[in-house]
Every structure is written in C-alpha cells, then in structure tokens.
C-alpha cells in the first residue's frame, strides 16, 4: 500500500465551486454591452413585460422632465449614439429644438431618422425593424413624453417600448 502524503490544504472543492461560478457569470452576465441606459433614472414598475433579447437593433432614450417656466419647455433626452464620421459611440443630449444659423433643428428626430432610414455617407442601410426603448423617469409627465413619441412617429419608428422594472416581492 503506497503511502499518500498530504501536500497541504485540499483545494479541489474550492476550484470546483469557483469554476461553477465562473461558468455562471460567463453565461448570465452581459459584459461590455452598454445600451446607454441611465441607471440614475427611477423607472416605473410594471407587472407585465417582455424581455427584448436583442438590444442591438434598438436605441435607448433616457427621458426626464425638462425645465418648466420657459416659453417652450422640452424634455431632456440623452442617448448613446453613433458619432457621425468617427464611427464611435458617444453619450449625447439630443435636443428637440435648437437654433443654429437662423434655422431650427431637431436632433432627436435627425438621430432617429439616421437609424431608421439609414445614411448613405455613413454607409448605414435603412432599418425598418429599428426600435426605440424609452427609459423615462417615474415623474416624467406626458407634456414631455409626447414630443418624444411624436418624433418617433415622424421618423417612422414602428415599435417603441417603455423600460420598466419588475415589482419587488416585499
């Protein structure tokens, strides 16, 4: 009978558990996927809801109430959008109304059209299945939500979704 000498602490169970954890995290965690969702926004709760598996075809719009008491109040919309020309992604505020060179522009509408209808210069094809996810704050009023929905309509975005959280068990 050979003599078996113990060489220290048996690490086999540790490795087993750690390997299981690694496989779990690799399967479940989404690494490096940034949809541009602003985690500081307190989204509303809903019981019903579906999980959008492929968020690659969507644009997440973070929408909060804009300043009131101004003549034409507009919501504050931010999104992670493609930089024109550079090709990278950048978090930007998309103003619904701003004036430049004496002309009025709608950055949100332009961006939605860019994704929905494509861009020949940026070599982006038209995308009829393009979706918009609205990540609105609980306190977002319809006054500020309506212009965003209106721009979605004008850009011919057929599908939009509200980002909501599942109710807690307590």
């Amino acid at each position, binding site marked *: 009978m*050979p*003599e*078996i*000498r*113990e*060489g*220290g602490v*048996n*690490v086999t169970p*540790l*490795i087993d558990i*750690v*390997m299981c*954890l*690694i496989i779990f*995290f*690799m399967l*479940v*965690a*989404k*690494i*490096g*996927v940034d949809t541009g969702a602003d985690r500081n926004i307190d*989204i*509303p*709760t*809903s*019981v*019903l*809801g*579906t*999980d*959008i598996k492929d968020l690659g075809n969507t644009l997440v719009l973070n929408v909060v109430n804009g300043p009131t008491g101004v003549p034409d109040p507009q919501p504050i919309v931010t999104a992670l959008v493609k930089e024109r020309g550079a090709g990278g992604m950048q978090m930007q505020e998309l103003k619904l109304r701003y004036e430049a060179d004496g002309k009025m522009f709608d950055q949100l509408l332009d961006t939605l059209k860019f994704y929905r209808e494509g861009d020949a210069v940026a070599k982006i094809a038209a995308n009829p299945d393009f*979706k918009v*996810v609205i990540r*609105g*704050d*609980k*306190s*977002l*009023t*319809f*006054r500020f*939500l*309506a212009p965003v*929905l*209106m721009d*979605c*309509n*004008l850009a*011919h975005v*057929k*599908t*939009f*979704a*509200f*980002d*909501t*959280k*599942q109710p807690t068990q307590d």
Partner: protein
Amino acid sequence: MKIQGAKKIHYDSGPNMTPLVDIVMVILIFLMLAGSFNTLEHYLVSDVPLQAKGMGAKPPAGTIFPKSFTIDVSQQGPVFVVKAGNFASVKDTDPIRACTQLTDQLRDQYKNFKDAGVKTADVQIIIRPEQNVTLDALVPAFEAAQRAGFSKVGFGVNTK
C-alpha cells in the same frame, strides 16, 4: 548489490494548483464586477404607431383601420381618473390599484368584442393622457390594456 525491499513512494497531492486558483479568482472577480444583469427590468412594447392629429406620418394607402377606442387618463390632485370608451371608468389615488380595476373592466370588454365576432387582434386602443399625467400613472394604464388581452396599444398625441 543492495536491494531495498520496498522503496518509499511519495505521492504529492498533484500539480501545484496555486497559479490556477490565482488566475481563476481574478477572472471571477472581473466577471462579478464587469457583468451586468437585466433580470430586474423588462419592457412594455407597443407596435402601434402614434395616432396624431394635425401632423405626422400619413398611413399607407389602402390601410384598413381596425376598431378602436380611447383610454383617457387624467390626474386630479392625488386621484388618477382612467376612462376607457364609455364602458370603463376608474378613480383611485393609487395608479396601480386603479389600473388593476381597469384591467378587469377591459377584460369584460374584450369578452364582449369576442362575443360580437370582432377580431380582437385588430382592436386598437389609443391612450390619451392629459399633459400633467406622469409616466408612473401611464405605464399601468398601458399595462392594463395589454393584460386585458389587447395587443395594439398606442398613444394619442394632439399637435397644434
């Protein structure tokens, strides 16, 4: 020649696992910190384009408009008032509770549509909220319509 009867064989506990454990631990901590989970969020999806008065994209020629009704949502102080067509009306301070009641009333209407032989998949619901209604109250109204079985739920926007 000296023959040893039994040479002692020493079995170590195997290969040195320390570097493996180090690396695996680093990978584990990286995954725990870098990973994000979406298990706590889900989406309320609408495939209905907005119905807008005054401007907006024109529907394609030949579009058959399905039967539709509106859900009006208003906020009178702390009370949320939700009215659907002429068959459902709910008032409550809690928007979620209000919309649970609305769901039940809409379910009855859904059954009426079915009994009347109307294709319920074609029934379009337009939610028309007042300007001061918050998303917290809108989402339950939107949800109530979907929970009742209606699949085409959209928002109505009045434009000048």
